[in-house]
């Protein structure tokens, strides 16, 4: 167990080092860079034309059905990795089980395709 924590201590240390890099660079920027805010400089950039309406406008997410499918398949991939590590030892039974699992998912994808929902709505 101590080995486990030691190996992830390195991950944490590098993350801290990365955060330190960002912090140092931003501090340097704050010290060196000029700061002359003007009202026109601080407006939202829309190619030089005065912005129309607000930026936080409602927008339609056109691919939400892909989003649903993505979540389902992504959960599958989490199950797939532990299985991929050991399936050779478990033999044919493990292969058939994963075959059925993937088959069900593939049938779902096929159904979504047949229903014509895989579109940029």
């Amino acid at each position, binding site marked *: 167990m101590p080995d486990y924590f030691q190996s992830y201590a390195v991950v944490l240390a590098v993350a801290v080092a990365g955060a330190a890099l960002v912090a140092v660079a931003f501090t340097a920027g704050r010290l*060196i*860079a000029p*700061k002359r805010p003007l009202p026109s400089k*601080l407006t*939202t950039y829309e190619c030089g034309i005065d912005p129309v309406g607000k930026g936080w406008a409602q927008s339609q997410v056109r*691919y939400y059905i892909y989003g649903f499918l993505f979540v389902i398949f992504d959960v599958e991939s989490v199950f797939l990795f532990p299985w991929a590590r050991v399936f050779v030892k478990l033999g044919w039974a493990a292969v058939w089980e*994963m075959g059925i699992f993937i088959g069900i998912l593939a049938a779902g994808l096929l159904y979504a395709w047949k229903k014509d929902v895989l579109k940029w709505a």
Partner: protein
Amino acid sequence: MTFLAQASGSIVDQWVSSFWIALLIKAVAVLGFFLVAPLAVGYMEHKVLAHMQSRFGPMEAGNFHGWAQLVADGVKFVQKEDVIPEAADPTVFSLAPAVALIPYIVLFVTIPFSKTVFAENLDIGVFFLLAMSSVSVIGVLMAGWSSANKFSLIGALRAAAQLIAYELPLVLATAAVVMQAGTMRLVGITEAQGHYWFVATQPIGFLIFMIAALAELTRPPFDMPVADSEIIFGAYTEYTGLKFAFFLLSEYGGIVALSAIASVLYLGGYRALPGLPIPEPLMMLGKITVLSFIVIWLRATYPRLREDQLQRFSWLVLIPLTLVQIMVVAILKVAMR
């Protein structure tokens, strides 16, 4: 395959007995590599694109073929005014570049440059890499939403769409490699390619992985999130100076990272070709360079796709192909047990 389970320790642990000093050396080494390698790839992009378009590219900075151009750019970026638009959410706006950048630095913890040259040979290896490489999209989403700019928002939503399209082919292709290698540790996967590289047995997987990696990096032909002729510069539209530079750095860092992952998974990582007396770390760097070159080459070659085309291509071609590949690898692997 028992030898894979007991992988040797990092070279730092062999030299230094103190845990804390080793930790410090590893963190500094990974950060140092991250600060040099993306600059080298950025310089390569300048030069390769220039020569493919029959021009010279940067020639002045540093005298010799403008090698110091990106260093000069970095110095310039630090001196630029940091403009935060009045409508933007300043906290999220400032955090976004860090969220996009840091995962790509952390990712290099587990990339092996030889049997002993790596910071840490994590037990969940490839899973960690895939997880880290998708975090930085959150930074892009933060940037797009906090900018309070319509073009930024469109760019961020496109970036999210891209995540949905590329993530599954990437993960499923990697799963097929894990199945063949029988381990998730990167040193183990590399050592498992002792007789032949996995690109020989899974060429389609390699192709799918590279396509998905290009989409993840939002590199042409999949650069819809930053399509400059339609939505200015996507999620980065409102960014100036250092914060913009960090987004650029994370893009180049991503090229190095994905090239490194691809070479470990499919091209034998640090393993040299038989009969070639090249040191292992150089071999790994060479493979990263070749794959990065291909990524840049594609930018000079292909026009941009549409977002919906990428979605359809991913769901109707790439994902079914990877599912079939997983089953084929499973059956062959058990049959040849």
